């Protein structure tokens, strides 16, 4: 049995695929690629396939980790080649490595939020408004957790935040607490900002760029 960490990129139409559906989708892709997966033992065996940091519906990812276990020794290049030949549009393996860091070491992630408006002025206005809002240090929203819904200050989850206009788009670069301990969904942040700024963009893309451990070290 070999543990392998796949790093995939999720973009385009695949962004509308929920986490549960991603699981099914990758299981099938691995089967199509003829990569023999290791199956759990027991009454209802299923292939071992774990998303370390599931992406919320609507968020794209540049380099997302996914662990699989194979029964045969297959080279990283071969796995990448075979999977990319069979993955649907919008999903792509960008790297295959050994599984070094553990999922619970993840503390934060960097996001890029692009909100497009009808005019450059609106984009400017939005970028200005959200910078001001975050600057106050207070942005309340209802947040769902395992223990139910409660109101929290989203700013407590924000490590860095920069917004600027670029043509008709307002582009936000932000690092948010992410992982099993404390987690803020970038989609929730954007939605709350829209409400607070009382503006609604024409189109919106949210991309998770990088994932970090303590001290801003890249998760690997």
């Amino acid at each position, binding site marked *: 049995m070999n543990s392998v960490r796949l790093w995939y990129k999720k973009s385009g139409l695949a962004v509308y*695929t929920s986490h*549960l559906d991603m699981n099914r989708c990758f299981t099938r892709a691995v*089967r*199509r690629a003829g990569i023999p997966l290791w199956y759990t033992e027991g009454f209802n065996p299923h292939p071992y396939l774990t998303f370390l940091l599931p992406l919320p519906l609507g968020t794209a990812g540049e380099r997302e980790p996914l662990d699989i276990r194979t029964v045969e020794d297959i080279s990283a290049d071969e796995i990448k080649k075979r999977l990319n030949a069979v993955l*649907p*549009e*919008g999903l792509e393996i960008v790297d295959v490595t050994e599984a070094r860091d553990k999922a619970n070491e993840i503390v934060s992630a960097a996001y890029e939020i692009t909100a497009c408006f009808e005019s450059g002025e609106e984009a400017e206005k939005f970028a200005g408004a959200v910078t001001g809002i975050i600057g106050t240090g207070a942005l309340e929203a209802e947040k769902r957790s395992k223990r139910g819904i409660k109101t929290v200050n989203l700013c407590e989850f924000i490590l860095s935040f920069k917004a600027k206009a670029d043509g008709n788009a307002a582009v936000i670069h932000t690092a948010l607490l992410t992982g099993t301990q404390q987690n803020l969904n970038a989609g929730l942040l954007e939605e709350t900002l829209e409400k607070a700024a009382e503006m609604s963009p024409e*189109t919106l893309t949210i991309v998770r760029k990088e994932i970090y451990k303590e001290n801003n070290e890249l998760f690997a």
Partner: protein
Amino acid sequence: MYPEKLEKHLLRVQKPGRYTGGELNSVVKDRDSVDISYAFCFPDTYEIGMSHLGMKIIYSLVNSRDDARCERVFAPDVDMEEILRSENIPLYALESGDAVKDFDIIGFTMQYELSYTNVLNMLDLSGLPVRSADRKGLTPLVIAGGTCVCNFEPMADFVDLTLLGDGEEVTMELIDLLKEYKKKGAGKEEFLKAAAQIPGVYVPSLYEVEYKEDGTIAAVTAKDGAPGKAVKRNVADLDKMFSPETFVVPFLETVFDRTTVEIFRGCIRGCRFCQAGFLSRPLREKSPAEVERECRAICDSTGYDEISLCSLSTSDYKGLETLLRSMLPWANENKINIALPSLRVDNFPQELMEQLTSVRRSGLTFAPEAGTQRLRDVINKNITEKEVLSTCAQAFSGGWTAVKLYFMIGLPTETPEDVEGIANLAQAVVDEFYHNENKPKGKSVNVSISVASFVPKPFTPFQWEAQDRPDTLIEKQNLLMQCVKSRKITVSRHVPHTSFLEGVFARGDRRLCDVVEYAWKNGCKFDSWEEHLKLDVWMQSFEKFGIDPFFYTARKRDFDEILPWDHLDFGVTKAFLKRENERAHEGLTTPPCREKCSACGAAKLNGGVCNELCKAVV
């Protein structure tokens, strides 16, 4: 791909993956590279439609042509419909995002009557008039196929034509003809007249229906050279027929997350309530080698890990053992489950059974359909209480503890004893468990019975019978509940209102078109979904047009009445169905085709040769 305008709304609807397209194996062709564009529409949600085998076949078939493309369209859910309407986005096809109204053929597959209003809604969302007469151009041509078109009269004013029987060959011929007529710039009427000459095509507007004063049909007259009877198409050799080697693999979870491979069409059983069995006669089997080839190809291209072998009665497939012996090693090695729906476990080799993981997982199911032997004889369902109990005994010894039993109420000649019999049979299964010495230790048994309401259907021996009214069905359900004594038995029953509406449309005529349109205009859609069904609106609609819906359901017909579907020919003859109806009332069973041919008439569709037992019957 979806229209650009939709982008900002996609994350605001439930399950956006229903509306994006771009799934693995979907075929995207450029509109300008083909002569004919075919929009295959399923009048229900994505998850239901994507599990449908017929769609997968026609999709691959049409796309196998260089001169045509086929794209998929599903009924948008209520939240998406709101957006489409408020943003003025016409209904689009998933592959290209092109508007449905710009396709040459808009084809609906009709699997159940309660999806009729969705057809109108989808046409309207496309920006098209719902009535055939109001769509003047040659294209888009609106067509329908599937089970319901054996009597599509309640929808006759909306579609331009229907395809009867197996769709593979006739779809190709229709595309050829349309291509030719489009090229020469012909009009719609001219085309429809020519299309009516293709065997398997029925053009409702070429038939005139006159009614008697009592509301029954006086005459149906074919005009403009249309055949007196439109005959269904029958693909004689399934091995030579086109069958897809790949399916679109949805991102979303669908109703059945697996591949389906057909093993045969037709049925040798002759259960008198079963419309599918008679409509699809005669029996035609695929060879085990062909089935296995398809299974392997589809699993390779989709990555699915479950195959469902599909037919009306798995156990009747002659090649079943050969197929399983050859295919199981491959399946097990690749961790692929083989599901055998409606497998009768008696007579099935034990060692093969043990290798079928899916059977182990899903538990035991039986469909006795009726509670007493008398009534089972009436409906010609040949399963005995003894068979049920002995199979259960075997299974209990093997460690099973759950049994599912399927029944119907409202069957012709049913008495209170028959309803009680349902509870008794379930109780007998419970008792069998407790008397079984080898039963699993420390566990209890669970028998669940599911009770559907019987709806008489065209082209069955019960097509003349009266359907129970909803209040009668509720009484029978209550009686059943009183008879169930054990807490080990759970009963699930269905609201009789949906069966009532289903019954109206199953045996309805053209006068119902106005009712369907009016009900749809007043908000009826997704009628098969209990939470969407608006019975009061339907009742108002019937009233508005002076139509008594019970005329279609609760009335027993005379054998010599002209039925709304009499001008269609599905092989089985009216004389045979009448014979079967009479035998039912005498409590006489009819043997399956393999024991004795009953000369049902379907053999003529196969050039007079039905199966090895009835070569001589024409």
